[in-house]
């Protein structure tokens, strides 16, 4: 999965509408109007949940697509933020729960998650590319086991329950519509940040490091620092996803951050496509729809075979996921438009 770095000549100065792109605008309108047609179930369990997992996938996509580091620990980062919310805020598990207001707890949780992400990154960037996937898998499992065994901080196997999404500015974010817009807002923010960041100096440097770390090192760039900083940024997005996830579920337990969940995030990112930040959201939507309705169609028993086969097919015939498939069957569109760095 090497992606050659595209140079970015901007011939003309487009107006703001062109800059954003009509596709984005249409998609945005559709997403904003979605609550008008969707039931509460579709709004939260499909819409909100997809957006949350899309954000987790996005943090993985950012590391993998731009940095060449495939991480299986993004759910761990999200889980750390989720546990922080449970510990700093309120829970009904009769343990810890400092009762901090959400506007302190949430930023602190995200910050801690980002720092944890940097640490994971620091450990794994000491080795080369393909090691990352194994090391992060091992770290994710270790965190899972630790959370399961530790009662003083993580409340063991039961975890925390009774965590409630906050109400602020007169809006109760437990309300399905409000929660959906909350997820949508942060997703758009993260999406735009990635899209913008990929064209920034840091984004371009990161992609250059992905393509040829040796050359970048020779040019005087601090490769490790750039990579670790990428982990930090991915940690912010992952942490944000974790905060939303714990508000969504109202609970967090080791099962939330288990190996299965870690692999789910990878599946989401890969199925969606690792080349454009819209990919993980698409992947999340597909996976969530499949997860929710497989029991009505094929029976839940063989759900994993189905999703595994879809995953295999995608990896085999279209390394760029659904986005790549799209490009394949629509050859008249230039593939460049969906590449990072443009």
């Amino acid at each position, binding site marked *: *999965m090497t992606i050659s770095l595209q140079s970015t000549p901007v011939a003309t100065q487009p107006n703001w509408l062109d800059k954003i792109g009509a596709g984005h605008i249409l998609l945005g309108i559709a997403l904003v109007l979605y609550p008008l047609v969707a039931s509460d179930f579709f709004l939260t369990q499909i819409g909100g949940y997809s957006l949350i997992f899309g954000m987790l996938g996005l943090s993985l996509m950012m590391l993998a697509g731009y940095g060449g580091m*495939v991480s299986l620990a993004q759910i761990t980062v999200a889980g750390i933020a989720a546990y922080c919310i449970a510990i700093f805020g309120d829970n009904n598990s009769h343990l810890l729960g400092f009762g901090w207001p959400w506007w302190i707890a949430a930023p602190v949780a995200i910050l801690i998650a980002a720092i944890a992400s940097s640490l994971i990154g620091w*450990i*794994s960037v*000491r*080795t*080369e*590319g*393909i*090691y990352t*996937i*194994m*090391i992060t*898998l*091992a*770290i994710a*499992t*270790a965190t899972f*086991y*630790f959370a399961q*065994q*530790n009662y003083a901080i993580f409340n063991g196997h039961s975890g925390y329950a009774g965590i409630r999404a906050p109400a602020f500015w007169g809006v109760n974010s437990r309300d399905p519509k409000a929660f959906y817009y909350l997820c949508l807002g942060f997703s758009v923010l993260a999406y735009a940040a990635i899209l913008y960041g990929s064209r920034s100096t840091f984004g371009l440097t990161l992609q250059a490091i992905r393509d040829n770390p040796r050359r970048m090192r020779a040019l005087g760039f601090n490769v490790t620092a750039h990579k670790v900083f990428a982990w930090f940024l991915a940690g912010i997005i992952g942490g944000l996803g974790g905060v939303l996830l714990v508000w969504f579920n109202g609970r967090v337990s080791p099962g939330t951050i288990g*190996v299965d969940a870690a*692999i789910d995030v*990878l599946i989401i990112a*890969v199925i969606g496509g690792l080349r454009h930040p819209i990919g993980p959201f698409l992947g999340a939507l597909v996976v969530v729809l499949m997860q929710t309705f497989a029991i009505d169609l094929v029976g839940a*028993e*063989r*759900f*994993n*075979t189905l*999703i*595994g*086969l879809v*995953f*295999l097919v995608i*990896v*085999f015939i279209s*390394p760029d996921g659904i986005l790549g498939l799209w490009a394949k069957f629509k050859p008249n569109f230039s593939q460049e438009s969906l590449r990072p760095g443009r």
Partner: protein
Amino acid sequence: MSILDRPSSSGISGGGVSRRQAWGLFWLLVAALVAWLVFAVWPDWLNAILISKKAFVSAILNGITLAGLYFLVASGFTLIFGLMRNVNLAHGSLYLLGAYIGYEVASRTGYWLLGVAAGFIVLAAIGVVMQVVVFRRLEGDDLRQTLVSIGISIVAADLMLAVWAGGTYQIAVPEWLDGAVTLPVITAVRSNGASVFLTYPFYRIAVLAAAIVIGIGLWLMLNKTRVGMMIRAGVDDRAMLSASGVNVHAVFAIVFAVGAGLAGFAGVVGGSALSVAPGEDIRYLLASLVVVIVGGMGSISGAAIGALLIGLAEQLGLVYFPTYGVVLTFIIMVVTLAIRPQGIMGKSR
């Protein structure tokens, strides 16, 4: 420090004790301490600290036998990685499938050894098929190979669940391997002066012996045969190997067959010692991952050292700090990575 190393003269010349000699002395002392711990009758204070001598010695023995099992699984994993840069995350599935096949064959024919052989042969064949049909198509693309192996492991786990359901299978150990043996290790002295000797399942000793024999066999194959020479050359420089006219694909297929076959073999052997159930695939995959990360990718001796460390850590952890014992192995991994990212026996590339 890899399998390729020739016995070289000691690195540091000159007066004084070389680093190597110091390490040798250190390990000698450790060995002496362990020997004393195993064979001496323990004073009470030591029993008080370490629960009991029986618990301690059993944990050590169990750690070593578990290491034998881990070595069998991890050696295939590390060889495949070393040669093909292929992180086969479906390696655990090979273990589990081998165990199920071994169970079926052993329980239908009544011959345990036949089950073991079937586990090896069938999985070796599957390994070749995987290499030829799947991985060869993605050659040179590490990431996609890894992703494909994840996909295979998901599908395989689910299909195995469909065929063998979620039940727990126990592969029956034949009579001649069953039962407990009394080891010449005194665990306690009764008040009437009689010594209590340690009993230990004979089967586990057999597992350890098998692992050692296979380890030596692998070493011989790698160091004394033509194929082994090619494999070692491939680990070091794949491009040069193919440039020198060797059929790289044949070598790859052989390594995959041996690696997958060993995983299947370990599945039957491990499934007889413990049991066969869904979830074992992930367990052994993680164990292999940690073992080779600690030991160093692509190194057989590294796999042996890593397996020993992890096996002992797991069992001692289980007895002495059960709460965080599981995490202990991962701490070892992280510490190794922090100090020596390429693993104990790994070569920095």
